[in-house]
């Protein structure tokens, strides 16, 4: 999606051109790196290739950081694009602490066992 000439030249389209120069979304919200996003409904016409790629990546819940990795775009750019999609009701966002302010003992024990089993 982002065409590169070479590392020296950088991407043909500068990353923030995709956000029309914005470093923040209109609503000013900053999505947490590990907030989970999911596509909602069918995408309307008129979306750009990056927006469509995000909606494809978010067909099942995916973290904001993983979206940045999938699209190979800076997190700052992805956040603005995601906020736009959120403002238009095309994605849902689940904040990372929606399950409670702190993870439960049971969950942490599961993580410890999972790490040991790696």
């Amino acid at each position, binding site marked *: 999606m982002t065409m590169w000439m070479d590392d020296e030249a*950088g991407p043909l389209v500068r*990353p*923030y051109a995709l956000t029309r120069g914005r*470093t923040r979304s209109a609503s000013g919200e*900053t999505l*947490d*790196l*590990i907030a*989970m996003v999911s596509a909602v409904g069918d995408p309307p016409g008129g979306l750009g290739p990056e927006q469509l790629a995000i909606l494809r990546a978010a067909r099942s*819940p995916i*973290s904001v*950081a*993983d979206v*940045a*990795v999938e699209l190979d775009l*800076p*997190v*700052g*750019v992805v956040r603005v694009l995601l906020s736009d999609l959120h403002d238009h009701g095309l994605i849902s966002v*689940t904040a*990372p*602490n*929606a*399950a*409670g302010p*702190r*993870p*439960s*003992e*049971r*969950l*942490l*024990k*599961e*993580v*410890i066992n*999972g*790490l*040991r089993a*790696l």
Partner: protein
Amino acid sequence: MDSELSDDPVALKILIAGGFGVGKTTLVGSISEIKPLRTEEVLSDIGIGVDDLDGVEKKTTTTVAMDFGRITIREGLVVYLFGTPGQERFWFMWDELSHGALGAVVIADTRRLTDCFPSVDYFEQRGTPFVVAVNCFDGASRHSVEDVRIALDLDDDVPVLLCDVRRRASAKEVMVSLVEHSLRTLTAAG
């Protein structure tokens, strides 16, 4: 927490901190299921500087790289690793990164132990559970865990362990130690 029993995916965040060139990227790479990605954060009003060993003087773009890794415990339970930018002027990014973090690993190099003082101070002040992982570089004189604890003036309950960040087993041990420490902190807090 009942909501954790539902299908909602749970994402946890662990930070990897420490001085410049201490092995943050290597640690993430040793344990992450994906290649250690350097997710670039482009900043609108900050000058030069990336946490990199070469080419710093040539760099004119306004970017800062964050190491990013992922460990899937099971479907719907994922641990994300974020390497914090090493330079102090990027600390505004730390506040966001450490928000809601399960804990942090501070990597220390005994040849330049002072490099990790700011990280230790930061997590102590924020009350973020952390462990100190002393990276045993080849040829680095080995200090005892106790020496490091004294030098860093750590509380007795902060785990300090020797590690080799290049080895997966060692990286695993560090992560387990951190989550166990977070669990103890959580339990102690009630």
